[in-house]
Each structure stands twice: as C-alpha cells, then as structure tokens.
C-alpha cells in the first residue's frame, strides 16, 4: 500500500468526523447480495525491489532492436530519439497534468499544444491541426469519417490497397455499423491503379484514402490522382509518414484535403505499438468538423497573450451525441514529444534525416537487386522501405533464421496480401548502418540454396 497516507489513526479520526462507525459502513449503498464475498484472485503484492526484478526477468525474455538489427517498419520505425525529447517528456509538470480545462494553470501545456499545431501545419502545408488522436490508424478512420461529414456524401469511400492493411481494417470496422460502402482500389504494381480509381469514383464518393509513401514504400502519383478525385467532387485523405516530409512535397501542396498519419517516428519509442500519436490536419474550411482538442490563441482580461482550448462546441463534453467524435483523452504527451523532436531537428535536421533514410534504403535496395535469392518487387521510386520477394518462396523460414542470426529482417506480407506470400517489407531508418545492411546480405547469401539458378 505504497501510495496511501491514511494511518489507522487518520482513518479513525475521519470516520468520526463523518459520523460513521467503520469503512465498511461507507459502502452501505452496495447491497450485500452484489458484494464480492472473497478476496480478488490476483497475485500477492510485490514491493518495488521484487517488482523490478520481476519486470527485468520478463523483459529479458524479449528481444528488441537493442540486441537485434531491426529492418522492421510497416508503420512503426526505429528512428533515433534525441535525449532532449526524453528529458522534456519526463518533466512531471507535463506528464502528470491533464487536459487543460483551467487555462490559468495550464499555459505550459496549451502553449506547447499551439506550437505543436503550428509545426504540424508547417510539416503538412495544411491550415489547421488538432492536438492529437490515438494513433495513425484511428486518425485515418477519423479522416474518412470527416470526409463523409464535409462532403455530405455517404455512399462510398474508396480505399487504396496500398494503404496500411491495419488502417484499412480499422476503416472497415468503423464503417460496418454505418451505411457507407468501403471500396478497395487495387494496386497491382505497388501503386494505385488509376483506371480502377476512375471507374469507382461516383457522385456519392466522399473520399479516396491514399498513403504516400504507401505501405509498400512506393510513391503514389499524387498529382494525377488528386486531379481525378477532385474532379469527381471527392476529397483526398492522405496518410503520411512525417519523416518523409523532410524531402517530399507536402500534402497541402499537392492538394490533399485531410492529412492523417502515425506520428510515432517523431520522438515516440516503438513500445510494441503504442501509445503513439495520431496526426490530423485539414483545410481551414473544415475546422468545425475536426475531431479532438484544439488550442487557440487569445488574450486574458489584462490583455496578455495566452492560449485556451477552443472550438469546444465540436466536442463530446458539450455536444454529446452531436459531437464530431467521441474522443476525450488523447495522446498529448506524444504531441509534446513530437514538438520537441521537430524543434530539435529543425528544417535542416528533418531534411537530413529523410535523406539518410533515402540513401541507406537506396543502397540496401541496390544490394538486394544484385542478390541471388532475393529480388525487389515493385520498380517504383521508394522512400524508406520496399518490398522484397524471396525467389525460394520461404519467407517464414528466412525471417526466422535471420532472427536467430540477430536480424529482424522484415515484415512478412502474406497475412494481408495472399498474392504476396513470398514477400516481405524491409525498412531502413537513419539508425541502420552499411555494416548492418551488408550483414543481412551476407546472411542471405549464406542461406541461398546453392545450385539453384534463380531466374532474374
């Protein structure tokens, strides 16, 4: 009972003040028939020392990029996190506070939020950003739902098959109880099939959901796509990798209407998939449909510049069932970390980190093109990851052997794309070194069945 102050004497004094004989009596409103008549069946309490040993023992049963070279990506990336991000994120005044309902004692959080919103707008070339959603996947579905509201078209949404399969699954799950149809746009060559796209656009299509760079790492022909989608009166909901925006044209500049994405790359550790950071930004004209908290600038009664939560009539605590979303707790801490990350990087650092990813990925790709066993699947420009095909069609064994050799070699694609059962996704962040890439290729050459000539 490490965190409770009350001594038996305190309890006695408090009960007397209340005018109550026992703590038990305080629970009189809970009928005996509903009481749990036994102790909870849970492990016995552990002290801090014991707990620390226990967690250490459990952690030792896991492997991680700390001991295994990591080429895993697919939405969660092993990017470097500067120490200054951890420092700011572990200040108790930030991490043990809550939603800034009282602006007078939350200016630190509110100003940091306003700065975050500005940075996200800069990164995406959009007009407004909210203060975070849960993660990239739920931000994606919020973007799709927002497109239904903004366009008042509820017939269908188009979803490219090159969007993260889990994000697509979330869209399907959220839309299942609603009347809107989810239509998949095929991507047989690793990018959106524009003919199929044109065929599926209709006057009740709310949006096209695309990802750029897409799940396969490939760049989509966004300019052409935006043009046909807009011509049909539908919106572009674009899933972005924020790191790529150090180099690539920003979504607002190519015409995206709603931008969403996973912000984990910006200073959040991978921690098995969460908590992460749902990014969301949009055009000015949609701001009153934007879900989530938003900080706005104003002045106080003495005329000082300050910040408050604003446009709250969008939100559940005011509008209840008419709110734009049900979100309440968000991912504020990771929005803060993203701000610190972006401030530390600056425009030049963002460009450099993106270029390091690009150059290292290009090197790895070139090496794999020359490999006997592996080949690069899609012949398209890529940013920091790409699809590799195993000519021996033994992806599972290859990845398992690689892991034994100290390499997390990639994410197998068969689970989501049965046609790509002989493929895996390979990601190269700025943390990977040439030696690690060479080590992987060395491993592959040692695991290539000799005597078999592979058709190249």
């Amino acid at each position, binding site marked *: 009972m490490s965190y409770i102050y009350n001594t038996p004497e305190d309890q006695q004094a408090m009960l007397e003040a209340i005018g109550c004989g026992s703590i038990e009596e305080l629970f009189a409103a809970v009928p005996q028939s509903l009481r749990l008549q036994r102790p909870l069946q849970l492990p016995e309490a552990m002290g801090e020392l014991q707990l620390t040993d226990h967690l250490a023992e459990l952690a030792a049963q896991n492997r991680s990029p700390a001991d295994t070279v990591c080429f895993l990506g697919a939405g969660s990336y092993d990017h470097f996190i500067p120490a200054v991000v951890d420092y700011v994120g572990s200040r108790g005044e930030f991490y043990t506070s809550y939603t800034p309902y009282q602006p007078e*004692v939350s200016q630190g959080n509110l100003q940091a939020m306003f700065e975050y919103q500005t940075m996200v707008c800069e990164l995406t070339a959009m007009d407004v950003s909210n203060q975070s959603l849960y993660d990239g996947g739920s931000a994606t579905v919020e973007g799709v739902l927002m497109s239904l509201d903004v366009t008042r078209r509820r017939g269908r949404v188009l979803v490219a098959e090159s969007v993260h399969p889990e994000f697509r699954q979330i869209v399907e799950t959220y839309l299942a109880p609603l009347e809107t149809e989810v239509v998949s746009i095929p991507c047989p060559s690793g990018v959106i099939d524009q003919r199929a796209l044109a065929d599926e656009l209709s006057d009740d299509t709310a949006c096209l959901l695309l990802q750029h760079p897409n799940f396969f790492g490939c760049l989509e022909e966004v300019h052409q796509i935006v043009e046909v989608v807009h011509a049909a009166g539908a919106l572009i909901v674009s899933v972005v990798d924020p790191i790529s925006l150090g180099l690539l044209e920003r979504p607002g500049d190519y015409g995206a209407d709603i931008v969403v994405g996973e912000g984990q790359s910006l200073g959040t550790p991978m921690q098995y998939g969460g908590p992460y950071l749902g990014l969301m930004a949009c055009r000015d004209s949609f701001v009153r449909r934007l879900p989530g908290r938003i900080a706005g600038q104003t002045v106080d009664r003495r005329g000082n510049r300050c910040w408050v939560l604003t446009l709250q009539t969008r939100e559940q605590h005011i509008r209840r069932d008419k709110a734009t979303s049900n979100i*309440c707790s968000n991912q504020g801490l990771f929005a803060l970390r993203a701000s610190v990350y972006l401030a530390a990087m*600056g425009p030049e650092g963002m460009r450099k980190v993106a270029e390091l990813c690009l150059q290292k990925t290009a090197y790895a790709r070139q090496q794999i093109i020359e490999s006997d066993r592996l080949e690069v699947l899609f012949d398209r420009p890529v940013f920091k990851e790409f699809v590799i095909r195993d000519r021996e069609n033994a992806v599972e064994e290859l990845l398992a052997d690689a892991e034994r050799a100290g390499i997390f070699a990639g994410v197998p694609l068969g689970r989501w794309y049965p046609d790509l059962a002989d493929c895996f996704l390979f990601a190269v962040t700025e943390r990977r070194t040439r030696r690690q890439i060479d080590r992987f290729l060395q491993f592959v050459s040692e695991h290539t069945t000799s005597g078999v000539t592979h058709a190249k």
Partner: protein
Amino acid sequence: MRNKHATQLIFELSRAGRSAVSLPTADVPQQPVDQLIPERFLARTAPQLPEVSEPEIVRHYANLSTLNMSVDTHFYPLGSCTMKYNPKRNERLASIAGVVDVHPYQSESSLQGLLRIFFELQQMLEEISGLDAVSLQPAAGAHGELTALMVAAAYFREIGDNRTKVLSPDSAHGTNPASARMCGFDTVTVKSTSDGFVDRDDLISKLDESVAVLMITNPNTLGLFERGIAEIADEVHSRGGLIYLDGANMNAILGITRPGDFGADMMHFNPHKTFSGPHGGGGPGAGPIAVAEKLTPYLPVPRVARLETEEGYTYRLDWGQPRSIGRVRSFFGNCGVLVRAYCYLLTHGPDGLRSVSENAVLNANYLLSRVKHFLPVPQGDRCMHEFVASAAQLKSDTGISAMDMAKRLLDYGFHAPTVYFPLTVREAVMVEPTETESKEMLDKFAETLFRVTEEAADLLHDAPHTTLISRPDEVTAARKPKLRWQPSAED
C-alpha cells in the same frame, strides 16, 4: 521560478542556422536525391520549423512546464478524472529495454515476456470486472466504449435482432452518447431522479425491443452507487438488451463488487485513472474492455493466448476469431500504459487494491462531511469516491459561481474540481480527492474552499489573481480562431 525570457513561442526564439542535432553523414555511397526520387515528388519549400539550439529547447520547455499544475506538484481533485499519484517505479519499469523499444511486428518468440504481461493483465482485468474476456486494444475509455458498442452491434446483427437505440442517463459523460452515435445508434436520454439515480419509470417507458444497450456509469457521475442496479440490469436483459458499464469510476469498488456481478455485459477500464497511469497533459490513456462470454467472439483481434507445452507456458497472439469486429486501432494497444497498469496491480495485490477503494471512498466522504456545511451536496451526505456539490444557492445569494470558486482555488494552490459536469446538477462542483492524499491536505482544501465562499464576489469574478494570466477571452478565441502561429501577423 519562471524565466519569461524563455517562454516566447518557440518560433519567436528561432534564428536561422541554429540546430540541436548533428546527424552523421551517410556511410553508404551517396546518389543525387533527384536520381532516387523524381523531381515531381520533391518539396520545393521546406517546412518552417523552428531553428533552435538544445539549451534553448531545454530552457523553453522547462520554463513552460512550470506554468502547469500537475499531480506531482499540486492537489488535483478533478472529479471523474481520478488524478491520483503516478508511481515513479512504473515510469521506470515501462522504460526498460525489452519493453520500451520492441517493434510491434517482432515474432512472437521474441516477445514472450511482454506477451505474458498482457496475458496476465487480461486475466487480472477479467477477475476485477467479473466478466469473461478482455481486449486490451482500445486506446482510451471513449475508444473502449465505441469498441464495446461495435461488439454489441455485431452480436445483434448476428442473432438477427435489429436494435437501433442506445439509452444513457442524462448524468452520463459526454463520451457515452458520442460513442453511441459514432456506432450508428440513435441515442435516447434517460432522466435522473432529483436524488441522483436513474429514473426507473422513465427508463421503463423508453425500454423496448429496439433498445440495444443501456450505457450506465456505476458508481455514477454523482459519486453514488446506482440504486437497484441489479434490477435495472434485469429489466434491460428481460427485453433482450445489454448493459454497458462505463468503468471510469472503478476506483470506488475494486474488490468490493464487480460489474459482471451486478449485471454488466461489457465495460471499459480507464487504466490511466484507476491504475494510476499519468495523464500526460491530455493523454495517453488506454481503454481495455471486458465482456461476457456471449460477446467474446466479437472482440477485436488479436488477444493474447497461452499454451501449455512441456517446457512451460508459451504465449501467442490469437487471430483466430472469424466473428471478430476486426480492429479499432493499429498494432496491439497502448502497451506502455498497460505495462504501467500491470505494475500497479502487482504492487497492490488483492488487499492493496481493496484498500485503494476503501481509502478513496473514505477520503471522499471525509471531504464531503467537511464541505457540505457551507456548500450543499444535493445528493445526500454519503458518496463513493467523489461527490458533486452545487454552488447554485451560493450564486443566487452572493453571485459566486462554480466557475468563480474554481478560479479562486487556483490562487490558493489547488487545482480546481471539475465544474459544470454532470449536467444534472446546477453549478456543479465535482470533487474527487483520490486515496493518494492526506487528511491534512483534505483539511486544507476544505478550509480554503470555505474561505472562498466567504470572499467578495467581485474579487472572485476576476480570479485568479496570482497566476500569470487570468480569465482568457474564450469567446474571441472561438469566434476568430487563431490556431497556429503565423510569421507575419505577430503581436
């Protein structure tokens, strides 16, 4: 002490050419960027991010942080949010290698320790809820509500029962009706009685075969254990409906009574409240849900399963649920928050958890006993883990509103209680002291609150007086939204 030279906007601190990082040059042969990426994909302009040095960043944010109240620094009796102490050991343990740095698509064999944590956490939450199966996937309480409603919708779809409505009391948290709407249900509000319970007559008049779910909070948002909860559940069940329990107030009943035992079919936990996850200036949270057996097949995937082998247990992700609703977020869940919850539960054990609730309820009742003499608590003089006072009388007598009191408390070094929620109490002041405060602190708070009610209304209308800013103009903020910094139009 705040240094105002460091708290301009970070953009205003920016100077061209400064940077806090120095990245290595590539150790691979370099190619011109436009040979790797065709021109048409490349940015023509760079994002205008701030250009600042590392010391500036530290000073900026360290100073900003001092402008916040937080649990580490202040009593934070924000009702409904359970702002209890955030144990430092949990922060440390959630940050160790093998926990904080694992990739979500690592193989199961490389994750046995972590999967065991989540399996055991599932089991513990099943036991605490008295329900049959748990999904750890949802990212917050509201997300858990939505997920569970999707589960309910899938269940009714499958049994061919077309139910279109969700009922929720007028005292419910806003997320309840908002979640129901997002799931495609029509929401119907059930009235509360003047003593703060669900109005049974009103409920029964609205209960028919079109009602899928009654969402109920118990203890409710007034801090009362819902009278006749089991009978309410029976009535809903007898019409074929399901009971959803908003578990935000579990801090009152750990080990005392279990939602599954009082009739709930599904519920969410808020580990960031009940199990002491820090709130991070807005988040993260987590929103694991527990459901009864008949709803289990519809839970999101994956969940963690345990297999017994000769060498002992192995853990794996179970995807094999053909009737699952699918997914509500990417990857496994808000794992860092879940690991903290696991540590919290192991720290307490069964007796410790019960003691958490006992002391949370004791503290709330003690504070109630001190406050009710000068600030009426319309719903009686006993509560569970929190209570809702009303400043309505005070306001009509003196002009002092709930907002005035909230603002003035800030001057005295207390975070304000939740005000104007629940909507069923006029001038609501919702106080949740939690178990991690001392009697002395509660005494000081009660004395201060009393003092505030005695102060001049005019003084209070302008409060707070000691904070850096006071009473921001929220109307202008909403009418002329300024939601980002602009280089040109600065003041």
